[in-house]
């Protein structure tokens, strides 16, 4: 069944029709391998280079510093494992936060099993890492700090520039996972003191299956995929030219429209938050009221469970997401909501609405119209009340 109101843009976005149009020639017409020396191959190579240039400009990097991968997950795996193995002689200590995406958490846990030492920085009630704590955690064995730019669940935007500054002063690599923020927040890798940055095309109206890793010139990093030496030897695999062209087009659109679109989304976001808190008793906002992504709304409703809320919305054709334990494969509540100090029963009733390019005023009106009834219905069945 197709949802008529899609409010799960943080999970993935539809590909913008302009992106699709840009990609189409690269499937059957210009399909050549960028490593081929013939004319078609060189033409494909040219498109690849142009895309790389466009994306590099978008984040203030050099073209030689952009490595294309298959996903943000791959990029994050490459950073943690690649930096760890290339810098073993310098140290074995890596710092992350407790609210990173599972691909960072799990890569770090795997490295721990290989003998590396991992520190996981706690966050406050809004999801911010403590800069003093970060500074204190960096020791002479520290080789990498990896802190996400904006959180995928609660939308909290970290003070990346300050974090980067601390890392720079201490002489450790700083990586940020910008999968949620690229295209929504301005990023300049030099001004923000970033050594490595992860992003993914499908979060900004590009295709799935394309990610990138910015690797600052001179960074010591080992590849995960060995082979034909693509992407400066850091990521062998035949290049996904159509996907990369799509990624570049998606960035180009964001670059042009970001400022205006952010204003529009923030207005919708704030209206949704205010409306929910006003209409529903015992509901509260997760994350920070202002230092959050322009499209993220994460609220919790006491005495009801998130999956039940989600399916009630689904019946009405609205697609949302939840951090409830019941909705997860491991039956564990969201690690992000746990990290900001919520109790299991508060996490159970959490719901994430993530807005996007096709979200309209009427969509917000509709949510605010049907939400009270949905919550009331489930609360009537619930034995837990105030």
């Amino acid at each position: 069944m197709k949802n008529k109101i899609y409010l799960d843009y943080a999970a993935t976005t539809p590909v913008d029709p302009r992106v699709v149009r840009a990609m189409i020639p690269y499937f059957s017409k210009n399909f050549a391998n960028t490593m081929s020396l013939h004319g078609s191959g060189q033409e494909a190579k040219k498109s690849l280079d142009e895309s790389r240039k466009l994306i590099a400009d978008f984040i203030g990097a050099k073209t030689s510093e952009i490595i294309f991968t298959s996903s943000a997950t791959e990029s994050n795996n490459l950073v943690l494992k690649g930096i760890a193995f290339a810098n073993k002689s310098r140290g074995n200590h890596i710092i992350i936060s407790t609210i990173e995406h599972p691909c960072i958490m799990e890569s770090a846990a795997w490295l721990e099993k290989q003998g590396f030492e991992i520190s996981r920085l706690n966050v406050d009630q809004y999801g911010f890492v403590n800069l003093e704590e970060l500074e204190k955690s960096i020791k002479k064995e520290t080789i990498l700090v990896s802190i996400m730019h904006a959180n995928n669940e609660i939308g909290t935007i970290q003070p990346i520039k300050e974090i980067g500054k601390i890392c720079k002063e201490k002489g450790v690599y700083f990586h940020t996972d910008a999968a949620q923020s690229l295209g929504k927040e301005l990023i300049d890798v030099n001004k923000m003191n970033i050594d490595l940055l992860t992003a993914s095309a499908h979060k900004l109206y590009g295709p799935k299956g394309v990610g990138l890793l910015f690797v600052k010139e001179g960074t010591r990093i080992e590849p995960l995929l060995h082979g034909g030496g693509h992407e400066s030897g850091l990521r062998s695999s035949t290049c996904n030219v159509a996907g990369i062209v799509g990624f570049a087009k998606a960035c180009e659109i964001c670059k042009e429209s970001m400022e205006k679109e952010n204003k529009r989304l923030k207005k919708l976001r704030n209206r949704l938050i205010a409306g929910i808190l006003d209409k529903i008793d015992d509901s509260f906002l997760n994350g920070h009221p202002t230092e959050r992504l322009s499209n993220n709304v994460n609220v919790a409703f006491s005495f009801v469970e998130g999956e039940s809320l989600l399916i009630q919305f689904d019946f009405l054709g609205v697609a949302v997401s939840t951090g409830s334990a019941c909705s997860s494969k491991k039956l564990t509540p969201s690690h992000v909501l746990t990290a900001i100090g919520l109790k299991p029963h508060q996490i159970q009733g959490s719901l994430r609405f993530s807005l996007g390019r096709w979200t309209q005023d009427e969509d917000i009106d509709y949510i605010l119209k049907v939400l009270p009834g949905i919550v009331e219905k489930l609360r009537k069945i619930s034995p837990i009340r105030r």
Partner: protein
Amino acid sequence: MNYSKEVLEHFRNPHNVGKIENPDGIGKVGNMICGDVMWVYIKVKKNDKKEDVIQNIKFETFGCVAALATSSALTDLAKGKTLEKALNIKKDDVINSLGGLPSIKIHCSILAVDALSEAIYDYLFKKGKNIPEKLQLKHKKALKELEIIKEKNKEEK
């Protein structure tokens, strides 16, 4: 989540929702892993053969789609049954009546069956009747799980 038509129908329009005033037995259970909570109320009457029969049953549940659907299906299965037969309702009876459950949600059906057992235990206990050993053991386990959930949700002052 890939739910059956029956599960979604029970979820959409659950049967026997609510409280019973002055119930003969209440069963309160919780799942310590996911945090779901189920309360089952029963009213017991004698039938022609002088057997104890569940004349009325209602539930209140905090939980996911599967938790609500299994609660609803369980009350359908138990209504009108003798206590003896009601105690024999297995999780598979609940699952089958729902046309199956995703494997990760099987525990919800166990919770529903446990809630009924607890309500029957409560009735037998209040009436000073003989309680089967198996039911006593189940009761102890249920109390422990509720304790764990309470502990997890304790507000830190």
